[in-house]
C-alpha cells in the first residue's frame, strides 16, 4: 500500500472544486430558505384543528420523510417538466426538491418544539385575555423556535450533505466537479479525498455549533 499522493493534482483541482462548493452552498442556502419558512407553515397545518388540513400536512411530511432524497430529486428533474410543461434548470429543480424535502423534516422539528411549550402558558394567555393569534405568535412561537434551533441546524447540515445528490442530475456542484476531475486526471484518491475534506470542513464546525446550541437549550429548558 505505498501510494505516492500527488499534491500538484490537488492544487490544480482546487479552483474547480471551489466553484463546485459555491454551487453546493447556494443549493443549501436556498433549500433552507424554503425549508425554514414552509416547514413552519406546514407544522402549523399539521397541528391544525381542521382534520383535512392536518391529514394533508401529515401525508406530505410522511411521503417526503419515507422516500429517498435521490428519488425525489430524480422525480423532480424528469417529471416536473413533463407534468407542468416547464423547462427549468437542474439547479432550480435541485433547490425545489431539496427545499421540499427539508420542509418535511423541519415541519417535524417545529411540531415537536411546539409541543414542548407547557400548556400552562396557554392557560396563562387565556387568563390574561390574549387572543389565539397573539398567544400563538407571541407566546408559543418564540419559545418553540428557540427549542427547535438545534434540530433545524442539524437538518440544515443534513441538507448540505444531501445536496451532493444533485450531481446525479448534472448540476455542477462539488461532487460533480470532483467526479469529472477524478475521471480526467485518473487520480480519484487525491480528488475524492479533497472533496470529502471540503464537506468535513463545513459539516464539523457546524455540528460543533449545534452542540453549543443544544446545551444552551437544555439549560433553558431546565430552568
Amino acid at each position, binding site marked *: *500500500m505505498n*501510494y505516492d499522493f500527488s499534491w500538484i493534482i490537488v492544487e490544480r483541482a482546487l479552483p474547480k472544486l471551489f466553484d463546485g462548493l459555491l454551487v453546493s452552498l447556494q443549493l443549501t442556502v436556498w433549500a433552507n430558505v424554503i425549508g425554514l419558512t414552509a416547514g413552519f407553515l406546514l407544522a402549523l397545518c399539521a397541528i391544525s384543528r381542521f382534520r383535512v388540513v392536518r391529514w394533508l400536512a401529515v401525508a406530505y411530511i*410522511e*411521503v417526503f*420523510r*419515507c*422516500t*429517498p*432524497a*435521490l*428519488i*425525489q430529486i*430524480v*422525480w423532480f428533474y*424528469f*417529471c416536473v417538466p*413533463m*407534468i407542468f410543461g416547464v423547462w427549468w434548470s437542474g439547479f432550480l429543480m435541485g433547490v425545489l426538491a431539496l427545499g421540499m424535502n427539508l420542509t418535511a423534516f423541519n415541519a417535524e422539528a417545529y411540531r415537536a418544539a411546539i409541543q414542548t411549550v407547557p400548556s400552562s402558558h396557554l392557560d396563562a394567555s387565556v387568563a390574561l385575555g390574549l387572543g389565539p393569534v397573539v398567544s400563538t405568535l407571541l407566546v408559543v412561537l418564540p419559545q418553540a423556535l428557540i427549542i427547535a434551533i438545534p434540530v433545524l441546524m442539524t437538518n440544515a447540515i443534513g441538507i448540505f*450533505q*444531501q*445536496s*451532493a*445528490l444533485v*450531481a*446525479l442530475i448534472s448540476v455542477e456542484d462539488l*461532487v460533480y466537479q*470532483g*467526479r469529472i476531475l*477524478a475521471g480526467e486526471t485518473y487520480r*480519484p*484518491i487525491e480528488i*475524492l*479525498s479533497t*472533496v*470529502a475534506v471540503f*464537506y*468535513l470542513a463545513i*459539516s*464539523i464546525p457546524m*455540528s460543533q455549533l449545534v452542540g453549543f446550541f443544544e446545551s444552551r437549550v437544555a439549560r433553558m429548558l431546565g430552568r
Partner: protein
Amino acid sequence: MVDLNFSFVLGYTNVLLAGLLTSIQFVSVAIVLGLSLGFVLSLMRSFGGTILGMIATVFVEVFRGTPVLVLLFWFFFCLPVFFGTDLGGFASAVLALSLYFAAITSETFRSSLKSIEPAQLDACVALGLGAGTRIFRVILPQAVLRAIPNLSSNVVSLFKESALVSAVGLADLMYVGQNIANKEARPIEILTVVALIYFACAFPLTRIAAVIEKKLLKVIKV
C-alpha cells in the same frame, strides 16, 4: 396535461422486485456490520479512555460529516487503487453503507448510554460492583433498550441512503427504476411507482418505531 398509463409497470413487476431484493440485501448486510461496529465505537467513546475515545470520535465525525455519495465514490474508485485489486461493486458499496451506519448508530448508542442516570452508577458503587459488572450488567442492557426506537429510525435512513448505490451502477431498486424509465421514456409512472415502493417499505418501519417507542417508554418509566 400528460396522459398517464400505469398498466405497463405491471410488466416489470419481477424486475422491480429483484431490484428491491438487492436493496434489502445491501441494507441487511450494512445493518449487521454497521450495528456491531457502531456499538463498539460508542463503548470506545464512553468508556475507552482518551486515545480510543479520540479515534472513535474522529471516525464518527468523518463518516457523519461526509455525504454518503462521496463515501460511495471514494470506496468505489479509490479502494481498488490502494489494494491493487477490484473489490467488486457490492463489497465497496456495502463497506461505505456499513461505515456510514456505524457512525450514525454509535451516536444513538452513545446518547442512550448518556441517558442513564448517574445515580445508578452511585448505586453500583454502593453495592460494591466491579467496573465490568457495572458496565455489562447494569448500564448496557438499559442503554440497548433505550436505543431501539432511534435505531429503527436509523435503519429507515440507511434504507433511504441505499438508493445511492445506483450511482455506482449497482442494480438496486433505484437503478432498475431509472433504467426502465429511460427505456420506456415514461419516467412519471415508473419513478412514482419506485417512490411508492420505497415508501411502502419505509413507512411501516417508522410506525413500528413509534409503537416501540411508546411501549418502551412505558416499560422504562415503571
